């Protein structure tokens, strides 16, 4: 492997700094004792974290977002895996149409989708329903899973399936023991991407959430439009910490590159 020169190294360092700086700043601001968004020059305080946990509506929104993201990402994966296998392996009428249909939510602005779904849900009389909010999320996150599973399915050695078939595996056994484990990195990566996309979706959710189903990002957005105080920074810091902790645990238990890159 060739070594990076000093120019490349400093460029990489700048990119990393550019990406991490906002996160570092928001985490520092969360510890401020002041009433404004300022860096904690004059001592650290946990008062804004305490403030978060005293806000039952924020806690409720966090659970809303978590459940929503887990269920929606799982549903999206259940739809995307068979769809990706069908699209990559078979030629059938409407194949390109299906592929395009599944991808369209990425192309259409979420704002437009949000307004459209608000009208649709109003017509159906299901405005503010958690189940329908979930379906809305499934629509916008399925393309992410689909892309990753399609890539994994194309990259997989099909002759391994033929080998399993000739060794006597039924179609279901084949999927369970050979195909799924071989495309698992794509499936797991797709699920994670879908989860993240659902968890921080704001634009669409603003239109289709009700006070009782409000997700964390929407709650934060609404709160921030009214008052800007360091509690926002505290919430952000908590979300960052939770994400980092999840990644570390996943890496320790299962190996992140095993899940996402596919080193068996």
């Amino acid at each position, binding site marked *: 492997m060739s070594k990076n020169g000093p120019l490349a190294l400093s460029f990489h360092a700048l990119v990393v700094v550019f990406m991490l700086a906002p996160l570092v700043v928001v985490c520092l601001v969360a510890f401020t004792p002041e009433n404004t968004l300022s860096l904690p020059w004059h001592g650290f305080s946990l008062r804004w974290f305490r403030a978060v946990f005293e806000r039952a509506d924020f806690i409720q929104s966090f659970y809303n977002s978590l459940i929503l993201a887990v269920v929606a990402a799982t549903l999206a994966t259940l739809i995307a895996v068979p769809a990706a296998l069908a699209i990559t392996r078979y030629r059938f009428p409407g194949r390109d149409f299906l592929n395009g249909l599944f991808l369209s939510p990425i192309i259409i602005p979420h704002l437009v989708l949000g307004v459209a779904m608000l009208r649709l849900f109003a017509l159906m009389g299901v405005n503010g329903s958690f189940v329908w909010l979930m379906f809305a999320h499934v629509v916008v996150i399925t393309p992410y899973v689909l892309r990753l599973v399609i890539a994994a399915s194309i990259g997989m050695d099909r*002759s391994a399936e*033929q080998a399993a078939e000739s060794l*006597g595996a*039924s179609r279901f056994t084949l999927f369970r*023991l*050979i195909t799924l484990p*071989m495309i698992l990195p794509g499936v797991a990566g797709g699920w994670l991407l879908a989860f993240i996309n659902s968890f921080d979706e704001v634009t669409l959710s603003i239109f289709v959430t009700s006070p009782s189903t409000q997700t964390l990002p929407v709650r934060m957005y609404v709160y921030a439009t009214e008052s800007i105080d360091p509690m926002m920074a505290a919430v952000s810091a908590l979300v960052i910490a939770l994400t980092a902790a999840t990644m570390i645990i996943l890496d320790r238990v299962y190996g992140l590159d095993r899940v996402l890159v596919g080193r*068996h």
Partner: protein
Amino acid sequence: MAFLQLQALCKRYGPIDAVVATDLSVEQGEFVSLLGPSGCGKTTTLQMIAGFVDVSAGRILLDGRDITHAKPASRGLGVVFQSYALFPHMTVRDNVAFGLKMRKVSAADIERRVSRVLELVRLTPHAERYPRELSGGQRQRVALARALVIEPPVLLLDEPLSNLDANLREEMQFEIRRIQREVGITTLMVTHDQAEALSISDRVVVMQAGRITQIDEPYHLYEHPRTRFISGFVGKANLLRGDRDASGAAQVRHQPGDGELVLSLRPEKIDLVPAGTGRLQGRVVMRYFLGSQWLYRIETPIGEITVVRRNDGDAPMNEGFAVGLDWPSDLLRVLSVDEVPA
């Protein structure tokens, strides 16, 4: 009746005929190679036998049973793929045990049979490794073991050696033959490498443009190629124009111009004799050192001729050297015109 039989087997992809009316009989315990250039239909034929490709017309009989339209899982054949097609998420032992688990063999039996076959392919020390931790040759052995452990009636090998480097390829050739002999399994191998086909097969089937053009034992195939294409594809050959003498025997025409016959003369069958003697006079244009042999290209009035001589330790001839060529006339082979385009 033969153990494995192909009867007028055809495969059409739209307007393209990939395999045309192929008949083949393979006896029990026999090692048969399908040899041909890429796109000749040999792999398609193998895949039809394995059940991965639908048959357009004709029949496949295995031990008298018609398996033409049976599912791959119910044929019970052992298949080794060009890419090995190992299961990357399973250890060597689990890869090999897969077919037995599918057959609901008891755990104790699986253990015993897997150990025995790993011994056969000399992989016992690597049983707990993953495919990514193995070399190309070892992966090849895993693929063989996985196919053999289910004790299939027929072993199908699809270009099994083409992903190995030259030295290893030769070693694995002999290894495959040893295992095949030891197990006594009927084997059909697809290859584009004539040396591979000649060295380890009982019979070689030459395919060209979807058709079988010659079926023969390796030695006979080499000595008596039927067509011009085969004489060039299987080994090296000098193609010469010729006609028949008064007694009806083939002879080379020594004047340039069209003779009525196409003759094949293998490079190692030609003797180099002092200039002025022999059947033909020439001059060495190029020489190549092949280790155990010297290869000379010699310019003669009837065209350039390739001659291979054993390296017996003497100094070779220099380029530009005048030399005579001689050969026993009974080693000239008359070729038929190719009936299919090359």
